[in-house]
């Protein structure tokens, strides 16, 4: 009997990372800006995305969405009301989207005919942070009802985000939302991040967000 140490030095999610790198190349070649929206369940990702899609379409941009949930196509139906092409991904119990699911659900879509693709991840602040979907921009969303310390509780997601969106700003006051504290905590975990304070209901903050999308697409797309 001999004991041997075999050095592997291999990423555990290597398969996902390779697929994501392939997707990133495809998005880039098509001039498509891809965003991955991550938050807890109930933050208001769908309402925020619905408004984003409607306003982008009204500006003459071509935007589409993939939306992940464990079950049901409720969110896809809601988002499709915006007029944008939308596809639902049902993970059937899996707590995150991975690059393979994205590749499969993009089949048949001509990426060159799109400007923006939004991927609404499964509502979960933990697992989605490990899975690269080939996106250019990872967006962490947080609502005013969730507590200002959420970034401190879930540092992995907030640290890996490129932009942060605070939702439901229209009810910030009755919720006793401490804005300064929330901004401070986000910055503590992810120094220098762009933060958008929005309300999908009133439209507050949406213009700054849409301008950011246009700039990012021009810069990186």
């Amino acid at each position: 009997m001999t004991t041997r140490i075999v050095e592997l030095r291999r990423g555990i999610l290597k398969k996902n990372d390779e697929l994501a790198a392939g997707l990133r190349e495809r998005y880039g070649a098509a001039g498509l800006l891809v965003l991955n929206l991550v938050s807890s369940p109930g933050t208001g990702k769908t309402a925020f995305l619905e408004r984003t899609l409607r306003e982008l379409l009204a500006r003459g941009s071509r935007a589409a969405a993939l939306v992940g949930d464990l079950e049901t196509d409720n969110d896809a139906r809601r988002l499709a009301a915006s007029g944008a092409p939308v596809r639902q991904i049902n993970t059937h119990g899996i707590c995150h989207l991975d690059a393979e699911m994205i590749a499969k659900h993009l089949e048949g879509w001509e990426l060159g005919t799109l400007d923006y693709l939004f991927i609404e991840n499964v509502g979960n602040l933990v697992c989605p942070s490990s899975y690269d979907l080939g996106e250019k921009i990872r967006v962490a969303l947080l609502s005013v009802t969730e507590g200002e310390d959420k970034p401190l509780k879930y540092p992995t997601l907030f640290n890996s985000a490129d932009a942060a969106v605070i939702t439901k700003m229209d009810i910030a006051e009755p919720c006793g939302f401490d804005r300064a504290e929330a901004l401070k905590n986000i910055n503590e975990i992810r120094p220098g991040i762009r933060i958008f304070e929005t309300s999908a209901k009133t439209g507050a903050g949406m213009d700054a967000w849409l301008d950011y999308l246009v700039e990012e697409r021009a810069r990186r797309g």
Partner: protein
Amino acid sequence: MHELSIVSSIVDTVTESVAAYPGARVKEVRLRVGALASVIEESLQFCYGIATEDTPLAGSALVVRILPVILHCEPCGMDVELEGVQSFRCPRCDEPSYDLRQGRELEIDSIEIEEGE
């Protein structure tokens, strides 16, 4: 709870790697996991026992080494280690930094195998 898919991926990779050593038994699988990898060791260990059943990894130990976050601090001109993940500031000069040099790793470092005669 994505630990099960992580463990399944470990089983696949290790099974593939030990195929080169016929008759070998896997004794230990060693991981390097960054403090920001959002993986819970207890969950990994729990899933590991189940997912390795009837595979070449059955009965092996999973050893998880947690790597602290290391940032590059521009003003100090050096890499600095953080004690936790609650504040991304240089512990020397308190300057915030987003230049991450370590902390997101999620990899199989090595495996220990026992070869037959």
